[in-house]
Each structure stands twice: as C-alpha cells, then as structure tokens.
C-alpha cells in the first residue's frame, strides 16, 4: 500500500464503493478505508434491499414508470418541504442513469420481494439483498485495482483552509500511519450507533434506542469534519427510525426485527393507552414514523396489539407474538395494567364502525368518538388468543450531515466550497432529507452522490 493516493475514500458502504469505483474508472488511484472488520463492512448497506430510482417506462423488474416529477412530489411530501430543491432534483435526475450504471458495476436487480408489492413500481430490489449488492461492488472495485483496508480506524483528518491533506490511521496489526491523498471522499455514514452522541439531543431516552445497523456507525468522520469547519446541515434529532421488536439485539438486528403489523391492530404505550392513529396510511408509506412516535412515549416502549384473526395478514416475524387467552392475561405478560388495557380495547371496540375491510387500499373501516381515531382498517379486537409485539425505536440512520453542492463538494462554514473534499451517502443525507423518509431513498442518495463524488474527486486529482 502506497501512502499517497489520488483519492482517499473513508467508509465502506454503497456510497463509498460507488465513489471508489467511479474515481478508479476516472483514472485515479484509490484507497478505501473501512473502519469495520470485513464481515461487517458496508455500514447500513448490508441491511438494505432496494433503491428508489426515477424511470420513464416499466423495466424487466419495475412494473411501471416513475417519473422525475412524481419522485420529487413524493420527496416533497415525506420531508414536508424540508429539502434542498436544486440538490434533490439533481439527485432524482441522476438516479435514472444509476439504474443502469449500478448493473455495470456487477449489481443485479430483481422484482420486489414477497410482501413488498406496493414498492414494485418505484423501487428496484437487489438480488440477494444489500450484502449481495456490496459483495458485487467490492469485487468490481478490487478487480479495477482499488485498494481496500478493513479495521482501519481514522483517528484524525489534517485539513487546512478547507483543503484535505492527510488522514491519520490506526490499524490493529500494522499500527499507526498517515495517508495523504489529493482528494477526499467522506462516505462514512451517520452517528446512529454512537449512543453518547445521541444522548446530547435525546437525553437518557437514547439508552432505550435499538440500533438497526452495526456498532461501527459512530459518526467519527462526520464529527471531525464538523469540528474542522465544514458546514453542518440537518436537524440532529432527525433520523430514519422505525418501530422494531423490543426483543431485538442492541445492534445489527437489521430488517428482520421490524413490524409491519401496526395497521392491523392498535398500539398502546406502557400505560396501556393509544397515542396515534394506527390507520393513517398504507404500509410502508408511514412505516418510518413509528420509531419517532415510540421514542416520544414513556420509557420508549409500546405494544402492537391485535387478535388471532389478522395473524396471517402480515409477514411472518422473527420473534413470535406474545399471546393471552384474555386481555388480562396478555396484559399480565406484557406487565401492563390489565384494567387499563381492557378499558382501552373495550373503548376502541365500541368505537369501530362497520365497513368493508381491505388492507390494500385506504378502506372505510373507521372509529368514531375516540381520540386518537383509527381512520382506516379499524376492526374490533375480540377473537382470542390476543396477541402483542413489544416495540422500541429502531434507529437506522441519522440525518445530521455535511452540506454539499451538486458536485458533492463539501461547503465550509463560511460558505466557500472545499477545494478537494467530497461527501456522499448518509453523511450528507440531510441535504436531501430534512425529515421523513420514503423507502429506498438512502441507497439513492448513496449511489448517486457516491458516483458524483468519486468522479469529481478523480477529476480534481487528475487536474
């Protein structure tokens, strides 16, 4: 390994690898520093499964067109307008070409997976999932001659006047070293696994968060960049967070700990009280609001409660539901007040109006006279066994990041663009995602800005 490269990429996920491949194809010598061991390489990419790209016509795997305009409208809706329109529209335009470019890098698509038909038109799924996608990108990068180091912890960045000079590196076997490079691509993700950092914004509640990805997503590069004068973007409390099973491991439980059963029942907090309209919108459109909702409840815990009639309406789950023949028995197992849970369910059942249940549309099964209402798919919970999943906030990734230009070039706090520093992926997701989420966007941000960052970093290095 030489200690001087044209392009240094810090990070090892989708954005980092797209950057490394694009830079290498642009003629640059490239080193990728992945902080995790080889098995855990790739940050959150290893848990992903699809990417949202605009396309003007159906493809072999996509069931219909998804225009740039429609993508933009979806983004506008989920973020409530908290997005950088120039950057976002640029990303959406570039996403069209990514559908083909990523295949040229060895990634394979497949139609939407079982249980995700609602994404069949908008999202392209990776054959074999996110780790298969990563494996393909690594194979391509290595074939092209990109150097990759695992377990490579960057301890410091040498930056002068917005110009990257070198990175200090600590490696378990080979010791400390300094790596100089003409350009830097920072693609090292958010700080979701850094509980101490999360606590700065969330307080003690962060102790009850479960982290859906590896423990290596600590945001140390993001912190260094912000400390060294790169402009910050995004609200530090904003993140992609879903409700996941409370029995999941603290880190890296991935996709299989999620629950998509909210719309089929009710959700109560530790006082056995409902707190939000469970029937607001079709899964997965509002899937990503439940993490924050549960985070706002006492002790950051909630329980999805349903009955035996709906068990086969959603995907099978990793953890079996907790069951009781009576509401009181179930409450006992959940350590909830039986009387309070019985009251909540009795009131809910009484408020359910007759309707025609259809979970594929916004149906007319509603409640009347309770707060909060359940505005779709409201059906009485009355057929034992009664079932429940305990859920906690599962943090996928944070939105706090470095501000960038359309060229993925970092902006310094004084508003000037950096001479040679680029960012891609979650570390700059906040430019596009002020809040909210639409499935597959994280990977779009990673691939599009990764490719741009790599191309621009190589161009800078070769000039």
């Amino acid at each position: 390994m030489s200690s001087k490269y044209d392009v240094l990429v810090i990070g090892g996920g989708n954005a980092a690898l797209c950057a490394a491949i694009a830079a290498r194809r642009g003629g640059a010598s490239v080193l990728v520093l992945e902080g995790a061991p080889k098995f855990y390489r790739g940050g959150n990419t290893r848990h992903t499964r699809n990417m949202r790209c605009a396309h003007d016509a159906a493809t072999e795997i996509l069931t219909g067109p998804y225009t740039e305009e429609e993508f933009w409208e979806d983004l506008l809706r989920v973020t409530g307008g908290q997005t950088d329109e120039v950057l976002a529209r640029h990303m959406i335009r570039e996403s069209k070409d990514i559908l083909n470019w990523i295949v040229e890098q060895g990634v394979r698509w497949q139609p939407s997976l079982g249980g995700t038909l609602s994404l069949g038109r908008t999202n392209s799924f990776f054959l074999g999932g996110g780790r298969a996608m990563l494996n393909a990108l690594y194979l391509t990068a290595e074939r092209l001659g990109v150097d990759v180091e695992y377990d490579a912890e960057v301890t410091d960045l040498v930056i002068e006047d917005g110009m990257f000079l070198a990175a200090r590196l600590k490696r378990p076997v080979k010791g400390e070293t300094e790596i100089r490079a003409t350009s830097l691509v920072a693609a090292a993700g958010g700080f979701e696994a850094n509980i101490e950092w999360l606590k700065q914004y969330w307080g003690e509640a962060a102790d009850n968060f479960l982290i859906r990805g590896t423990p290596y997503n600590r945001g140390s590069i993001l912190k260094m960049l912000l400390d060294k004068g790169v402009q910050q973007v995004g609200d530090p409390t904003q993140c992609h967070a879903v409700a996941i099973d409370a029995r999941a491991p603290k880190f890296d439980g991935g996709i299989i700990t999620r629950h998509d059963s909210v719309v089929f029942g009710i959700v109560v907090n530790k006082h056995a009280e409902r707190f939000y309209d469970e029937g607001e919108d079709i899964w997965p459109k509002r899937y990503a609001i439940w993490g924050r909702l549960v985070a706002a409840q006492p002790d950051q815990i909630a329980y999805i409660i349903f009955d035996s009639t709906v068990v086969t309406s959603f995907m099978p789950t990793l953890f079996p539901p907790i069951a009781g023949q009576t509401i009181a028995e179930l409450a006992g197992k959940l350590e909830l007040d039986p009387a309070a849970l019985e009251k909540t369910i009795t009131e809910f059942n009484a408020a359910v109006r007759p309707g025609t249940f259809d979970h594929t549309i916004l149906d007319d099964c509603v409640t009347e006279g309770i707060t909060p209402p359940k505005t779709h798919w409201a059906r009485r919970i009355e057929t034992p066994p009664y079932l429940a999943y305990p859920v906690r906030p599962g943090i996928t990734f944070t939105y706090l990041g470095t501000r960038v230009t359309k060229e993925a070039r970092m902006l310094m706090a004084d508003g000037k663009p950096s001479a040679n520093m680029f960012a891609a992926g979650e570390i700059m997701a906040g430019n596009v995602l002020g809040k909210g989420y639409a499935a597959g966007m994280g990977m779009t941000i990673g691939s599009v800005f990764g490719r741009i960052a790599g191309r621009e970093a190589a161009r800078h290095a070769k000039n």
Partner: protein
Amino acid sequence: MHGTRILDEADRLMTVCNSCRYCEGLCAVFPAMEMRRAFSDGDLNYLANLCHGCGACYVDCQFSPPHEFNVNVPKTLAVARAESYAAYAWPGALSGAFARNGLVISIIAALSMAAFILGFAALNDRNVLFGVHTGPGAFYRLMPHNAMAALFSAAFLYAVLALVMSVRAFWRDIGPPIGGRADGGSIVQAIRDAGELRYLHGGGVGCYNEDDKPTDRRKLYHHLTFYGFILCFGATSVATLYHYLLGREAPYPWWDLPVVLGTLGGIGLIIGPIGLLTAKLRRDPALLDELSYGMDVGFIAMLFLTGLTGMLLLLLRETSAMGPLLALHLGAVFALFITMPYGKFVHGIYRFAALVRYAQERRTAA
C-alpha cells in the same frame, strides 16, 4: 419441536429467513419457504432436498456467522438432507452405517465382487484369467453372460426396489395432503430444472465453494458426471439389446454405438468426479457437512472407478490385463448398484422429487 436437532435448527433458520426474504431470487428454496408460515418435518426435508448447495445465500446473508443470528442455510440444509436420506432409506437399518463409512463400504463391496468374479473364473479354468481373449464373447470366457446378467440384474432390481420404497416415503412426507400425485407438467418442469441444474447457479452469477467469489465449477463437473453416467447406462442398455435382440455379443468394435456411448460417458465419469472431489476438498469448512464426507466421497469414488476401469478395459481389452480389469470394472459397477439406495446417489432422486413438488406448488400458486 421436531424429531431431530438439525430440523429444529432448520426451523429456526426458516423463521429468520421468512421474516427477511432477501434471498428469494437466488433459488427455489426461499420461494418455497415463503409459501409457508410454519414448517413440519416433511416441509423441512423438502426444503433441504430442494437446496442445491450453491452457497449464495450464505455469502449474501447479513446474518451469517459471526453474526449472533448465526444463519447458515447451506450447511444446515446439507446436514438435514443427509439425515433425510437415512430417515427415508429402505430398509432403514442399512442407512446409518453407510452414512458414516460410505467410502470404505463401497470399496470393500467393489473389491469383494471383483474377487468373487476372479475366483469364479479361476475355479473354472486358471488360464482363462490372464489369457488373451478377442472377438465376440471374449468377456464371457470369464463368466458366462447369463450368470453376469443374472447377478447384475438382481443387484440393479434390488437398487430400484429400495429406491422406490425410499422415495415413496419421502414423497408421502413432503407431498400435498390429498392425493399427492404429480402432474405431467410439473414432471416435465422438474426434468428441465434437474437436467440443466437450474438452481446450481448462485442466483445467476455462479456458485460459491471455497470463498466469497462466485468462481465455482461444480455445475460443469456435475454435468460431466451425470451425463457421463447416463451415457454409460445407455451403452449398457444398447449392448443388452444387441445381445438379446440381434444376437451380437460384446466386445464391440470402437465405432459401434455401445462403445461410442461408453467412451464418451467414461470420459465424463473420469473428469467429472475428479472435479467434484477437488471442489469438495476445497470447500469452505463453514459450508461443508463433514459428517457426510464418507458418503459423498464414497459415491464420487465409485463413479470414478467405474469410469476409470471401463476406459482401461476398453484400451487394454486385447491384452492379458483384460481378465482382472473386467473383474474390477464389474466389481465397481456392482458396488455402485447395491450402495445406490444408501449413498449419495439418492440425492438426485430426492432432489428430483423436491423439484416436482416445487413445480406443482408454483403451478398451484400461479
């Protein structure tokens, strides 16, 4: 809970995988899994035999070891598959010993049979054994054709009977609750899927064997072995027809159909098993079912020996080595036949049955 520890583990994994489904596009196992929410012993044995061991789901899995979820589908299903062979074998008493000592038993069987033929010949006339015999009927100086045919027909028919009984038990266990008869379309589909090894392809890029790169050549070697076996079987069948219908006795000239088929098949049966054995020796230990090593290697060795002795016999049939080589060749074939119902051979039968079942399920679901 299931009957065995490995089925408990397979059940655990299918529960993990069914809540993930990322591997759905890789092969037939995961779509078949998705048609179920709970798994009986028969379901798990069906999925185990549907798995071709391509390794892709292990390399692609975010939860494979060292992850705490410890998801290793190829290895778990390989062990479950091997145990299913024993569970369905007929008669059951013979299965366990073979699984453990397949190679030794195969070789002993082959050598015993060769010794028997040699002894048989020597008893008749010591000079026959190392004599040079040519022309029609040369082989039968060692052992009269009818004796040879009776011996091998008996071995072959026994193998067929045992296999039919075993696969019947398997089919009953995995089959649909009512009837369970396979329709023609599903059988045709399964013949195509098995014939081209459709699911031994790692989801398209190729299979994994020794590491995380899809560079595995087992599919090629399996084709050489399987089609080599079929060609050799065809050669024997044609020769039998020649003998009884046309009254033409072996050995046949090199250009004649049985010899052409046998030569092509023999080449496949030499190269294919060498490739498969090499792949097995190089296989990532994480994916390997080491308990079935004896059974797997025993079958590969018998196929290889059948091919090798057959080819040597063809090359040296006009020399004094013909007698011993013929005895060895017949010994290998005999051992192959009688060990078929208890060895790795059954993988083809069970997997075919699983593919028929899968084709049926797909047609029903469509």
